[in-house]
């Protein structure tokens, strides 16, 4: 029995457009649910804003303040314009991570395609920012630190190009691996029940999974923060160059 099969996508509505499989899977529905929850959360909050905030507004303001001071602060040009993008990125990843912990829901971030899509969005955003800021040629020039001798620059340029692709790759793999590992461990602990086929083993999966679940909630926040923080850092690097 392969317990990790539970993490595979289950097709709900088969759909194919132009030869591309756009089937609605349980992962896609969770993605939509996460997006809808994030939107509803902020929309309902924006309709009930108070000068003296309630508990929920206060908690949200604390998180947004944290994103402003710890994440967006990496960006030195047009910081305020980037804030909505970073807030959306953080909360979208966070809600996807947390929904993955809800029983019967598929964890979108435990699928490399979802994290890769987010990393590609960040990659394209970073490249577009660099090109807009420095111009196409200027952006490539900005990848080489000024004052570097030509022979070293020739060597550095391909390294820098590779690193541009390594950044989204590391973003995608980091988020996927962290979330997948947590789910895999939880599934493996649950599988002990089936492996031993005894009620005596029951306390171990219950206690173990509860502990790991607590840790996974922490990981969900940390990974959302790390992804957003690194995205802000890459945007700042593209703006400023080397």
């Amino acid at each position, binding site marked *: 029995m392969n317990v990790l099969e539970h993490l595979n996508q289950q097709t709900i509505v088969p759909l194919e457009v132009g030869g*591309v499989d756009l089937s609605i899977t349980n992962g896609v529905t969770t993605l939509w649910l996460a997006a809808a929850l994030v939107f509803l959360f902020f*929309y309902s*909050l924006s309709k009930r804003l108070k000068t003296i905030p309630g508990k929920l507004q206060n908690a949200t303001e604390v998180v947004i*303040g944290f994103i402003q001071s710890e994440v967006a602060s990496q960006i030195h040009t047009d910081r305020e314009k980037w804030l909505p993008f970073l807030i959306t990125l953080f909360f979208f990843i966070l809600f996807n991570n947390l929904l993955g912990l809800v029983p019967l829901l598929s964890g979108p971030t435990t699928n490399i395609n979802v994290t890769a899509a987010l990393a590609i969005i960040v990659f394209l955003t970073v490249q577009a920012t660099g090109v807009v800021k420095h111009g196409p040629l200027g952006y490539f020039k900005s990848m080489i630190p000024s004052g570097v001798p030509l022979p070293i620059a020739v060597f550095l340029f391909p390294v820098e190009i590779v690193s541009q692709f390594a950044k989204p790759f590391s973003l995608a793999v980091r988020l996927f691996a962290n979330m997948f590992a947590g789910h895999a461990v939880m599934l493996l602990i649950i599988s002990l029940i089936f492996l031993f086929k005894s009620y005596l083993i029951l306390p171990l999966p219950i206690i173990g999974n509860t502990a790991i679940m607590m840790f996974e909630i922490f990981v969900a926040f940390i990974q959302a923060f790390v992804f957003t923080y690194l995205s802000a850092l890459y945007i700042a690097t593209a703006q400023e160059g080397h």
Partner: protein
Amino acid sequence: MFEFEPGLIIWTSVSFGLLVLLLYRVALPPLLALLEKREGQIAAALAESAASQQQAKALLEEHKIKLAEFHHSAEKIMAETKSEAEKARAEILDKANREAGRVLEKTQLDLAREKERIMAEAKATLLDLVAAAASRVLRRSITPEDNRRIIIESLDEVKQ
């Protein structure tokens, strides 16, 4: 989960793109505006507080200077008052001494006059007694014992 699923990539991109658009257009502006407004209010309050603190410091300095001036004035007034009091005391003392001297002199003068008067009176009384004693001597023969007795009696009367 490890297979390449372009559909999931597309749905993720579309979902995220739509969410960014909706939050950017609808949900986040009021919240960010409120945060900005509050940040502005806090900054203004802090600036106001700093200005008030500066003003309070300036007032404190001003009051310290005024207090020092008051202390100085008070010391000056105290010194002047003390000097005037000393002067007044000396004058009063001098006047009192002079008055006492005058009273003493007058008393001494009165005493001298009284003494003279008493002496005059005593002399007159003595003369009267002597005259009385003489008249008694003249009225009868006097033995030496009588003579002595009369003198003694006369002296006793003088003493009285």
